[in-house]
């Protein structure tokens, strides 16, 4: 129903297309009957015994015309009809394309995209990237198909079937019914076929995708496969997948190549009926040869085309509807995180952060954080450590309100984040993740992403602070270098420094660094440590880290275990206490014996100086 609503919004376009189509049909019929008329006229002249031609619309050629003139006039009419038809086809083709591509689909695409961008993260956690992509592209295409083929074509088909039918009926009632006797049969066959073969196609597509996935993963994971000597298992798996595709295809082929000949044969049966019954009528002089029999033969052909087209449409309807349903699901998805109606303005943010008994879960009942409670003064640097899965990233993501806590409050400068405007809140927060996402765009655009309309001086200042300016200017086109799939590949350290520059550009008062060194070659890690050092200065910073140097620098360390704070304090305080922090730190520290050797060496160096 909503689909119809969509069309209604574009009703002017829809009506225009429909009007064109109906005119087209009439003209097509006219062209056909003119040809039949010509044949009949010639026959009546040449074979005096045969019946006189039936003139259309009561039009009779003037009696003083020579037969040749009449024939030429008819030929002229045929051509005129054809030219008109061509013009109209062109027109309707264009207006259909305008309607569908420019109007309907473009609108829908833009709406879905806008909605996607405003959905909360819990939506993206639940859905795989592939599924979302399918909705935003494939499913919208199926809506296009719906409007394009189902709505327009089916109306056209129904109207044209009606027109053909009434034309045939006007020629001869009995013959029409006799010839169309197989019609219901044809219709049922088409529907049955579509129903039988469609799931097979879907299944075939799935099998094909699986085969491609196997291949792609074998290429991407070639290190692992070769490293564990699993070539044979993988080859067997691929061959099995490949064979599955083949045998599924064979099944489809059998059906397809039974169906189309069967359909053809039914059409031929119509012709046979026409010969036997229609032939008798012509012989009896009831039916004219040209406008009768020949035109009938042509129309029958057209009829079966239309019927099988309609069956295809019937098949497409279900698919389009499910596609449309999935698109509407996105449009109807609750926004989740939303700004309040009357947000508390926060033009300047000092950077005081407070967690009040915060409990949080991604899925209900599966607590990630439990009664987390702490306060951070503006400008303080807080390091968060904990085992993998202990809730470090979750804690960070509550601050810019990517999620809402299940219980408790998160306060910024004394205001619950839920009372603030989300956009404004996030402008005060800069963030860098484990693996930073960069867009396939220029370096400048990637840094400038944090602040619309940033000047190039600002960009360079941010890049310099992040120690990225130097390597950027060394890139082939400096700040205008395009990154990404088709562009330049950056090292992990370079990517992270760009991300830090991006975070710094808007000069946020709160900075979140989620383990920014994790995915980086340890050798180049020191490159970004300096950048981090610069970034932290003067801001409230939360950093997930495991480097001793960073931890030592932090004003406070929060140790998380299974969603609870088990210890807080400075590096030195925590080192005194027995616990997981002490164990981990000791592991990283230089043992006494080595330290003795190192210190001895440095003393000697100093002594030498």
């Amino acid at each position, binding site marked *: 129903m909503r689909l119809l609503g969509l069309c209604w919004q574009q009703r002017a376009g829809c009506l225009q297309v429909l009007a064109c189509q109906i005119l087209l049909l009439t003209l*097509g019929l006219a062209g056909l009957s003119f*040809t039949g008329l*010509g044949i009949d006229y010639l026959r009546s002249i040449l074979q005096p015994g045969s019946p006189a031609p039936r003139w259309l619309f009561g039009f009779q050629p003037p009696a003083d015309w020579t037969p*040749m003139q009449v024939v030429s006039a008819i*030929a002229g009419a045929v051509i005129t009809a054809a030219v008109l*038809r061509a013009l109209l*086809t*062109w027109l309707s*083709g*264009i207006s259909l394309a305008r309607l569908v591509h420019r109007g309907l689909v*473009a609108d829908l695409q833009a709406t879905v995209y806008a909605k996607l961008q405003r959905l909360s993260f819990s939506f993206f956690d639940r859905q795989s990237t592939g599924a979302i992509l399918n909705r935003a592209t494939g499913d919208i295409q199926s809506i296009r198909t719906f409007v394009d083929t189902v709505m327009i074509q089916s109306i056209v088909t129904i109207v044209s079937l009606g027109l053909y039918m009434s034309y045939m009926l006007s020629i001869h009632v009995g013959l029409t019914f006799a010839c169309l006797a197989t019609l219901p049969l044809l219709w049922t066959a088409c529907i049955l076929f579509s129903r039988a073969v469609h799931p097979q196609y879907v299944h075939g597509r799935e099998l094909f995708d699986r085969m*491609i996935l196997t*291949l792609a*993963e074998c290429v*991407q994971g*070639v*290190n*692992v496969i070769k490293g*564990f*000597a*699993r070539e*044979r*298992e993988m080859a067997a798996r*691929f*061959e099995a997948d490949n064979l599955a595709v*083949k045998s599924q*295809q064979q099944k489809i082929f059998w059906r397809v190549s039974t169906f*189309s*000949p069967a359909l*053809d044969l039914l059409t*031929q049966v119509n012709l*046979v009926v026409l*010969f036997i019954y229609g*032939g*008798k009528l*012509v012989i009896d002089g009831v039916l004219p*040869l040209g406008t009768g*029999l020949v035109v009938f*033969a042509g*129309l029958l*052909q057209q009829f079966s085309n239309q019927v099988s087209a309609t069956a295809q449409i019937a098949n497409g309807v279900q698919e389009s509807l499910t596609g449309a349903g999935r698109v509407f699901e996105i449009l109807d998805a609750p926004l989740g995180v939303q700004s309040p109606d009357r947000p508390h303005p926060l033009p300047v943010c000092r950077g005081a952060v407070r967690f009040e008994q915060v409990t949080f879960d991604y899925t209900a009942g599966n607590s990630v954080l439990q009664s987390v409670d702490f306060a951070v003064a503006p400008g303080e640097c807080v390091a968060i450590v*904990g*085992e*993998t899965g202990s809730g470090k990233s979750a804690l960070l993501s509550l601050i*810019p309100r990517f999620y809402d806590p299940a219980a408790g409050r998160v306060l910024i400068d004394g205001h619950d984040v839920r009372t603030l405007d989300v956009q404004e809140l*996030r402008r005060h927060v800069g963030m860098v993740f*484990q693996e930073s*996402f960069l*867009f396939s765009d220029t370096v400048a655009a990637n840094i400038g992403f944090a602040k619309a309309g940033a000047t190039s001086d600002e960009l360079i200042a941010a890049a310099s602070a992040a120690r990225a300016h130097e390597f950027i200017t060394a890139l082939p086109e400096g700040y205008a270098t395009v990154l990404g799939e088709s562009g330049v590949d950056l090292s992990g350290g370079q990517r992270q420094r760009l991300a830090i520059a*991006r975070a710094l550009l*808007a000069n946020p008062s709160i900075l979140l660094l989620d*383990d920014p060194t*994790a995915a980086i*070659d340890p*050798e*180049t890690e020191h490159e970004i440590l300096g950048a981090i050092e610069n970034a932290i200065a003067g801001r409230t910073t939360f950093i997930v880290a495991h480097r001793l140097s960073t931890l030592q620098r932090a004003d406070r360390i929060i140790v998380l275990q299974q969603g609870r704070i088990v210890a807080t304090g400075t590096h030195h305080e925590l080192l005194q206490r027995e616990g997981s922090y002490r164990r*981990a730190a000791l592991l990283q520290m230089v043992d006494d*014996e080595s330290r003795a*050797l*190192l210190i001895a060496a440095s003393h000697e160096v100093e002594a030498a100086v």
Partner: protein
Amino acid sequence: MSLLAAAGIPTSKGFTAAAAEPSALDWRILRRILTHTRPYAAKRNTIFALTVARAIQKPAMAWAIAAVINGPITGGDYRGAVWGAAGFFALAVLTELTFHFRQRLQLELGEAVVHDLRNDVFQQLQRMPLSYFNKTKLGRILGRVITDIESVRRGVQNVFFFSLLAFGQMAGAAGLMLYYNWVLFCVLLAVGPLVWLTNRHFHPRLSVHSRAAAESQSRLTGSVAETVKGMRVIQGYARQRESDDRYGRLIDRHSDNNVGLAHESSLYLPLLELHSQVFLAALLVVGGYGALHGFAGMEIGSLIAFFFLPSLFFQSLQHLGNLYTQAITSMAGAERVFQLLDLKPDWTDAPHALDLPDPRTAHGRADAPASATTPGTKGARVEFRDVSFAYEPGRMVLNNLCFTAAAGETVALVGHTGSGKTSIVNLIAKFYLPTSGDILIDGQEIRTLRGESLRSQMGIVLQTNFLFTGTVLENIRLGRPGATDAEVRAAATSLDCLDLLESLPQGFATEVGERGTSLSLGQRQLICFTRALLANPRILILDEATSSVDTITESRLQHALDRLLATRTSFVVAHRLSTIRRADQILVLDQGCIVERGPHLQLLARRGAYHALYRQFALAE
């Protein structure tokens, strides 16, 4: 067949497929495609026969329609009309039977050839050494398998047989028309060039537009993909409105391209139709004149025949044009596939290469290595004798390396980026062959060993590892496909990380998601450690394996790792001091040479390169 059939709105299939590349038919490639049909020669020859039969049948049917109308019906012979109809019906049944078999066999043949080609490509890929995959992008390989092999299918399924069919029909229709009336046929021929010219004019334009539309479509999809992946960044920086605008512009361009395509095709199709109408009009005038004035033996009968036959002729002509562009595309696709198949791997295992004897299977269980928890044999002895290596000729990465790792020893490789640590690891795993010198595993030269048998006794964990689509359990089991659930759990227990894996949303049954993205780096790494341990390797390689694991998890892993390393020959590339200092032997590398070697304290005391490096790492900590 009526002219109206040609007037129906054709599908756009022909246009999208026609990515015409201006190159001529290449008979060598054609012949090679044909050789791929050889295993199905019987099928192929049957199809040829059926195609020829069908090429005759179709004009015959058109002729039969005309004959029945002209003969008995016009002549008033009712019995004759019934017989004629019966004959027509018999012919129709025969034709459709041929149709069924021809279509089925043809599709099956195409699928069979494509199936074989895909297997060939996969096998070829497996023969390729690692260096190939470092040079080749995944997209290119997928392009071969998806697009190019599919276009070969189209070539086999359509081009071969359909062009034969189209030729046959054209010739048949032309012959019949000539037989009926040569003057009318000449009129028809006059329209022919018009059709041909129209095709020539529109085909390249249509393919340009459809390519532009396909490209803007893929850009649109790419943009959505990027948005979804970068959603944290977009929402984090509150840039939704700007992204909306950017996407809006892409949509506009895409719809412009689509409308442009519609412009061309809605001009092209009516024009084609117009041609057949022009011919009909000409037919009426010329035929009418002939019939009225007794010119050239024309009569109503031949006019009626001409009502049915030309559509067959025109359709075939049009079809042939499409087929030609299709043939060229298929040819280009086939060429690329064959190029991949013909690619010679830089090196392969020597034909007489032997399996590395596996002491783990020598006593007792032949299929599965001893349980991961019980220390098996001591590991393998690895020896480098004067090994040099270059990825590209002339740029040596390793120079005359000599060292021995006794069975069960742990060797730490230390050095700056580019000093050759990872290259050594790559050579031990036989991912590459040394440029000169020998590598001996248990006393056997690595070139005389089958790479697969060597690596089946090896476990490798890198800094970031690929996880396959599937569950955590499936990914771990890759280390040893036959392992039971209990053995997998035992491996996790011995790494002291069972609780961490079980605390995932669905425990071991958690789907790792696209390339492991639903797990944190630390969690992914735990899976890889467990996977390596499950394989119970004799040689273990850890290349910065703990770098991305957080400190607290690492400290838990550490104890387990010590035990893991103790019972096998291990090579460890690491910056974490804890791992290095326990090594039996440390090799300090600088620009592909070993500059220092020995245990930790001894090297520190020496105050050379290692001392300097260690100081640097210790300060960074």
